[in-house]
C-alpha cells in the first residue's frame, strides 16, 4: 500500500476562450477540420494555458496552500486532482481515499430534508451508507441543527445550509484532503470549529491541498504555499516568502496620475534594504520618489499598512501630523521618507501610499503595494498588534488552608 500523497508532475492544462461548437450545425465544420488538419498545434488562437508546468508533492503531515488572483487556475488545479478534468500534459497523482471539500452543498436537493440530504451528499462525497449512519449524530451535532434535521433544506438559512455541508465533509475519513475556499461560511464560532477540524486532519498525517484567499488561514494551516499566476509558471516556497511575493505583485499597478521612480524599504537600525522577515517592533524606513503626471494640489501623504488577509492595520496622514500640504505640478518630483515602527505580530503586510487632496478629501493618487514586509515571531499566541506587555506576577501564599469558594480574591461577591 503506497503512502497517501497529493502530487502534480509537470501538469499543463489548456482552456478555450469563447464557445465550443455546441450544436449539430457546428459539428460538420469541426469534423472536417479534424480530418484535414490532423494534429493540431500546441495552442490555438482562442486557447490559453491556465496551468503551466505545475509540479508539487504533498506528503503526510504537510499542507500546501494554493493562492493567486481570480482566474489563476486554483480551482482548476483541484479539479485536475479530483479527476474531473484531465491535464493536457503531465500527470496528477493522488493516492488514498480523497476527501474533497469543494462545493459542500452541491448535491443538496432543496425539497429533501436535512436527514435525507445527509445521506445523499455523503454518498456523493463517496461515503458508505453504513458510515454515514454510524456518524449521523456526530454530523448533526457538528452542524448544530438538531431541531431542523427533518425540515426540507429549502427552508434553511444559507448559514445552516453551509454548516450542514461542512459537517458532512468533516466526517469523511479521508486519506488525502482537498479544500477549495469553503470556509468563508458560517459565523465566527463555526469557522473556528472548521479550522480546528482541518488542523486535526493535518496533525493526523493527512496531506492537504488548501485553496483560499484568506492568507491568515493559509499561514496557520500550511507549511508551503504555491502562488498561481495567470499565464506564468507558479511560485512555490515557504509561507512568508510566497505571501510577500503575492501581496506585492498583487496591487502594484501604479496610478496613471503619477510615476513611481523609486521605492525602497530599509531597516533603520542597520540601514540595509529589507530582505527576509523582521521581528515585531522593528523600525522601518520607506523611501519613495514620485513624479507627478498631472497637477496634484493641497496634498497630504497617506501611509497605509494592510495585512495579507485585508485587515487594515494602520492609516495615517502627514497633514494630520502637522506637516504642511504639498503642491505638485506635472514633472515635479516628490521625495518622501516615512519612518514607522512595525509593531505588529507575525504575518505578511503590504504598504500603500496615497496622495490625498486635503480640501476635497479624496485620493488624488494611489500606489498600492508599494512594498511589503514580513514579520515573524513565535512568542505570541495570536492577534495583530504588538502591545509589548510586561507581566508583574506575585503569589501571596495563604497560611490558612484553602477552601475553594472562599479563596476568591476579595471584592464584590
Amino acid at each position, binding site marked *: 500500500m503506497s503512502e497517501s500523497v497529493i502530487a502534480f508532475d509537470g501538469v499543463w492544462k489548456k*482552456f478555450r476562450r469563447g464557445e*465550443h461548437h*455546441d*450544436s*449539430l450545425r457546428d*459539428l460538420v465544420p469541426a469534423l472536417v477540420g479534424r480530418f484535414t488538419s490532423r494534429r493540431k498545434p500546441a495552442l490555438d488562437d482562442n486557447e490559453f494555458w491556465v496551468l503551466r508546468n505545475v509540479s508539487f508533492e504533498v506528503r503526510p503531515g504537510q499542507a500546501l496552500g494554493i493562492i493567486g488572483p481570480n482566474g489563476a487556475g486554483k480551482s482548476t488545479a483541484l*479539479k485536475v486532482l*479530483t*479527476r*474531473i*478534468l*484531465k491535464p493536457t500534459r503531465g500527470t496528477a497523482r493522488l493516492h488514498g481515499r*480523497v476527501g*474533497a471539500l*469543494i*462545493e459542500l452543498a*452541491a*448535491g443538496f*436537493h432543496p*425539497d*429533501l430534508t436535512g436527514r*435525507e440530504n445527509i*445521506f*445523499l451528499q455523503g*454518498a*456523493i*462525497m*463517496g*461515503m*458508505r*451508507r453504513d458510515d454515514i449512519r454510524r456518524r449521523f449524530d456526530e454530523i448533526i451535532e457538528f452542524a448544530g441543527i438538531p431541531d431542523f434535521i427533518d425540515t426540507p433544506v429549502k427552508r434553511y438559512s444559507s448559514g445552516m445550509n453551509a454548516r450542514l455541508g461542512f459537517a458532512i465533509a468533516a466526517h469523511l475519513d479521508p486519506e488525502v484532503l482537498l479544500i477549495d475556499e469553503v470556509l468563508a461560511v458560517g459565523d465566527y464560532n463555526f469557522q473556528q470549529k472548521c479550522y480546528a477540524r482541518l488542523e486535526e486532519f493535518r496533525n493526523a498525517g493527512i496531506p492537504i491541498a488548501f485553496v483560499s484567499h484568506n492568507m491568515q488561514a493559509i499561514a496557520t494551516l500550511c507549511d508551503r504555499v504555491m502562488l498561481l499566476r495567470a499565464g506564468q509558471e507558479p511560485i512555490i516556497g515557504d509561507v512568508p516568502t510566497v505571501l510577500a511575493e503575492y501581496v506585492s505583485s498583487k496591487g502594484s499597478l501604479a496610478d496613471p496620475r503619477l510615476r513611481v521612480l523609486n521605492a525602497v524599504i530599509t531597516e533603520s537600525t542597520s540601514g540595509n534594504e529589507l530582505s527576509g522577515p523582521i521581528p515585531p517592533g522593528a523600525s522601518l524606513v520607506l523611501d519613495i520618489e514620485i513624479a507627478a503626471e498631472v497637477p496634484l494640489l493641497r496634498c497630504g501623504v497617506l501611509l497605509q499598512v494592510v495585512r495579507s488577509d485585508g485587515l487594515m492595520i494602520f492609516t495615517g496622514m502627514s497633514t494630520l501630523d502637522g506637516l504642511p500640504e504639498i503642491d505638485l505640478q506635472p514633472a515635479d518630483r516628490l521625495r518622501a521618507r516615512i519612518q514607522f515602527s512595525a509593531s505588529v505580530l507575525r504575518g505578511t503586510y503590504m504598504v500603500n501610499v496615497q496622495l490625498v487632496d486635503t480640501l476635497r478629501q479624496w485620493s488624488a493618487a494611489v500606489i498600492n503595494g508599494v512594498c511589503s514586509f514580513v514579520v515573524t515571531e513565535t512568542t505570541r499566541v495570536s492577534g495583530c498588534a504588538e502591545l509589548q506587555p510586561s507581566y508583574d506576577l506575585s503569589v501571596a501564599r495563604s497560611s490558612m488552608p484553602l477552601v475553594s469558594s472562599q479563596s476568591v480574591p476579595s471584592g464584590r461577591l
Partner: protein
Amino acid sequence: MNQLIADCREMLTEQVQYRDLLYEMTRRDLLIRYKQTIMGFGWAVFMPLVNTAVFSVIFTRVAPISTDVPYPLFAFCGLLAWNFTASTLRSSVTSLTSNAGLVTKVFFPREIFPFSAMLVALVDLVVGSSVLIALMAWFGVAPSRYIVYLPLIVVVHVVFTAAVSLFVAMANLFYRDVKYIFEVVITLWMFATSVLYPVRTMAGRLGTVLRLNPMTAIIDGYRDTLFGARPPDWASLGPAALLAVVLLLAAWVQFHRSEFEFAERI
C-alpha cells in the same frame, strides 16, 4: 483490446465503489417526484391507464383491430413496457445537463445519472405490474409455462434501455439539439413499435422494416411470456438481445472515455 478490458474493469469497479450513491440518487428522484403529491405512486399507473382507456375506445369501437388478448390488456402491457424505456430516456437526456453543478464540481462516475433514471422507471414498472396482474385476472388471462422466459425479456429490455440512455445523456451534453430531436424520435418510435397495435401481423415491406425494431421484439416478448399463448419469438428476440449487449458495451465505454470532457463541455 487490453485498453478495452482495462476500461471495462474500471467502469465496473467504479460502479461497485459508488453503489450507495446509485441507491441514494434513485431514492432522491423517487422522493422528490412524489413529495407534496396526494396520489403518490398512483401517478405511476395513472398515465398508462388513461392512455389504455383512450386507445381502447379507438381500437375497439372506432377502428377495431384483432389482438390475441382483450385489447385493454394488450395496450396496457405495451404501454407499461414502453413507458419504462420512454421515461428512462426522457430523464436521461437532460440528466447530465440539469445536474451541471455536480458534474463540474464533484467527481463520481457520471453513469449514475442515467442509471438512477432507469431505476426510478423500473420502480414505476414494478408498481404498474400490479395493475397489469389485476387486469389479467379481470379478463381471465393466465400465464403458462412460458413465463419462465420473462426474466430474460426484462434483462434484454433493461440492457437495451441502459445502452440508449447512456448514449442520449452523453449526446445531449455535447449537442443540446438532442433533447429537441428526442421528443420527435420518441413519439415516432412508439408508433413504430408494437405498443398499441400488433406489428407481427402487419404485411408487406413496412411490416418487415418495423420488425427490425428491437423494442418490438421486447414488447412482443412480454406479451408472449405473460399471456401464455406461445413461446417468445427467438428469431426476433435473439438479434435484439445481441444488439442490446453490443450497444451497451459500446455506449458505456464511449461514455466512460469521454467522461473527463464533461466538466469542460457542459
